[in-house]
């Protein structure tokens, strides 16, 4: 989204203008923010919670909490990353509840060595996803990413699926930049390895 140039040299993100109006009680301004980001929040929540009902609840609760806390929004970060931080926390809370109170945090299960060095040497064909129908492929991709520990899955989703920068991902999750980089690398390598089961070249591929 383009920034709006003000009379001075400072640029103001359009979201900040909407946030300012919403703070003054303009619910329609907030509605624009909801419509702009509800799909992304739903995707993130569904990826983390792996549960449709929980994801729906997260969308409602994250936007409501953000609205209630608009006064705390500093404006030195993007509204979207601030909102995502709330949504991630809500999602992790629900994941914890589903797991009958077992602690779930962004740090969970990240101390595994799996994924630090690739083991699978199998190459893929040029368009491996074409081996599957759209629905089957979507199932494979969902199943594969669901197998990652929450700490890796969340970093991968924010960084690679939603397109946040490394710095934004770090700020959103309360992690250091090196921690985000480390988890992202391991998440990518683990996903790659797991997808290889489906996408590896079969014997005879390429033979005429």
């Amino acid at each position, binding site marked *: 989204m383009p920034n709006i140039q003000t009379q001075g040299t400072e640029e103001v993100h359009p979201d900040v203008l909407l946030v300012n109006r919403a703070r003054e009680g303009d*619910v329609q301004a*907030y*509605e624009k923010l*909801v*419509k702009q980001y*509800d*799909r992304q929040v*739903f*995707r993130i929540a*569904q*990826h983390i919670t792996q549960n449709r009902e929980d*994801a*729906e609840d997260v*969308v*409602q609760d994250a*936007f*409501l909490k953000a*609205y*209630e806390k608009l006064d705390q929004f500093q404006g030195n970060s993007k509204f979207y990353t601030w909102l995502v931080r709330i949504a991630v926390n809500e999602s992790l809370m629900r994941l914890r509840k589903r797991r009958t109170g077992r602690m779930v945090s962004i740090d969970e299960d990240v101390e595994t060595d799996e994924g*630090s*060095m*690739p083991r699978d*040497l*199998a*190459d*893929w064909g040029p368009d*491996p*996803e074409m081996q599957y129908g759209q629905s089957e*492929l*979507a199932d494979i*991709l*969902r199943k594969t*990413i669901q197998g990652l520990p929450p700490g890796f899955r969340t970093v*991968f989703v924010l960084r*690679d*699926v939603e*397109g946040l920068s490394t710095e934004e991902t770090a700020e959103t999750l309360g992690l250091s930049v090196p921690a985000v*980089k480390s988890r*992202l*690398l391991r998440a*990518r*390598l683990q*996903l*790659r390895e797991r*997808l*290889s089961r489906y*996408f590896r070249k079969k014997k005879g591929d390429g033979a005429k």
Partner: protein
Amino acid sequence: MTCTEFIAQLDDLLEDRVTVTLRADLEEHLRGCEHCVITMNTTRKTIEIYRSHELYELPNELRERLQKAILAKCKKC
């Protein structure tokens, strides 16, 4: 350069955030290491596939219901 050293730079290489000198070193490693070529290409493909497939769409009907519920609650704040 070892494979471990190459993998440590893989993300920056995929995102084109390496210096010219480092890129030259990485490319030299790739010329002699099929394992790392495969790892790089399939990791890049992994990211592309996840970026280009919408796994969790929010259907319009549900979306409208959620929006109404959110805004109704906000108005009561």
